[in-house]
């Protein structure tokens, strides 16, 4: 009985010692998963995306030189403003788009801390962009995992000319 007793205690203590040690295994990067698609099946050539008003070295969010029909990127949203703008340069032309949103900070877990959750309310864009479509207005830390291979929060249709 006593051997069993100690055996069980050993097992319980051993299990207790095997905790995650406070490591964060969840995503805390809240990114708006965005796909860029060229109109009329035109391929998107070299493309650069950066934040509106951010032109310093290192402010580039995407610098993709490949040609592709679809390009995907996770875009961070502003933490303090109620809208976030991005500058897109593709196939030699530049355009700007804005996303209007609300945000609240929520706890992810003890190990991971807090992260912002967004709700997209409206979009606006300039001429290179043909149109924008919001597929899922809710943007949270899981969005980047949810749409890691397919799907997106928003799609941006670029007005491209054939090369």
């Amino acid at each position, binding site marked *: *009985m*006593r051997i*069993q*007793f*100690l055996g*069980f*205690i*050993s097992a*319980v*203590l*051993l*299990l*207790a*010692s*095997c*905790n995650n*040690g*406070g490591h964060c295994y969840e995503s*805390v*990067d*809240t990114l708006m998963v965005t796909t860029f698609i060229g109109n009329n099946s035109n391929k998107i050539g070299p493309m650069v995306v950066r*934040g509106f008003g*951010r032109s310093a070295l290192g402010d580039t*969010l995407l610098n993709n030189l490949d040609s592709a029909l679809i390009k995907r990127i996770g875009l*961070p*949203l*502003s*933490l*303090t*403003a109620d809208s*976030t703008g991005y500058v897109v340069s593709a196939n030699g032309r530049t355009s700007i788009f804005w996303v209007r949103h609300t945000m609240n*900070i*929520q*706890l992810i*877990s*003890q190990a*991971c*801390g*807090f*992260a*912002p959750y967004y709700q997209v309310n409206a979009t606006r864009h300039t001429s290179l962009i043909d149109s924008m479509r919001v597929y899922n207005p809710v943007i949270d830390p899981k969005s980047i995992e949810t749409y890691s291979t397919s799907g997106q929060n928003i799609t941006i249709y670029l007005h491209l000319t054939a090369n």
Partner: protein
Amino acid sequence: MDKILRYIFILLLISPIAGFGQKKDDVWRYEGPRFGIDVSRFLMPYIQQTTRSAIEIQADYPYKGNWFPTVEAGYLDVNDDNDKFHYTNKGPYARIGVDLNIVKFESLADNDLVFVGVRYGFSRFSHETLMANYTNYWGAITTTFPKDNLNAHWGELVFGMKGELVRNFFFGWSARAKFLFAMTKDPHMTPYVVPGLGYTNLGVPFDFSLTVSYRIPLIRTKTMPKALKMGGSKQDGSEKDDPDDPNNLNNPNNRNSNNYGTGRTGGNQF
């Protein structure tokens, strides 16, 4: 590895205590209320990386030998201050329930238990986020969430053991699965821990306790609790001839006393 070494150290501390057994010549059976403290709450900071401090006391009382109505009460204080956030959560909690011993007592002096039990738990606590940081491409934000008072209700399934290491002193452990029934909602944030329940991000929080307890031997008896009959035991009379049954007059272990009834003392035997 460091945690494993701590665990081994704790086990080494515990093992010699387990060497103390009951005296073989004691043929009385003692019963009474048992009061204990959960020492795992003190060991936890050394076993796990945690920012919690807690105390928990427990009490139970035998009913018809194998049933142990139980009350547990405690207080949890979380002060989680790191570079990401500073969060506090504190409050009392209580549980009531019952344990059922599922093994047969081997002798009058045998008080070791293997038990299953249920609990209903309740906590009234407050939590507050004094600082929450987040940084991304656009900069950083620091925010706070005000103090809020919350209630939580939950149920528990318990399995454990208690052994009488020295007369009237028990050492035991229990493992628990917990099921949150209801919790008041905070519009700002869900608490990640609830006093007495544990972490809320786990679907079914598991917990364990290590209890050191003392039984006040109010009752002295020669009567063994009846073993539980699980799943329709045979009633063919063979039990009457069981030489290991302490209630059996043919059991030689029970012949050294002329008192086979229930006796109560005023405590002068202790």
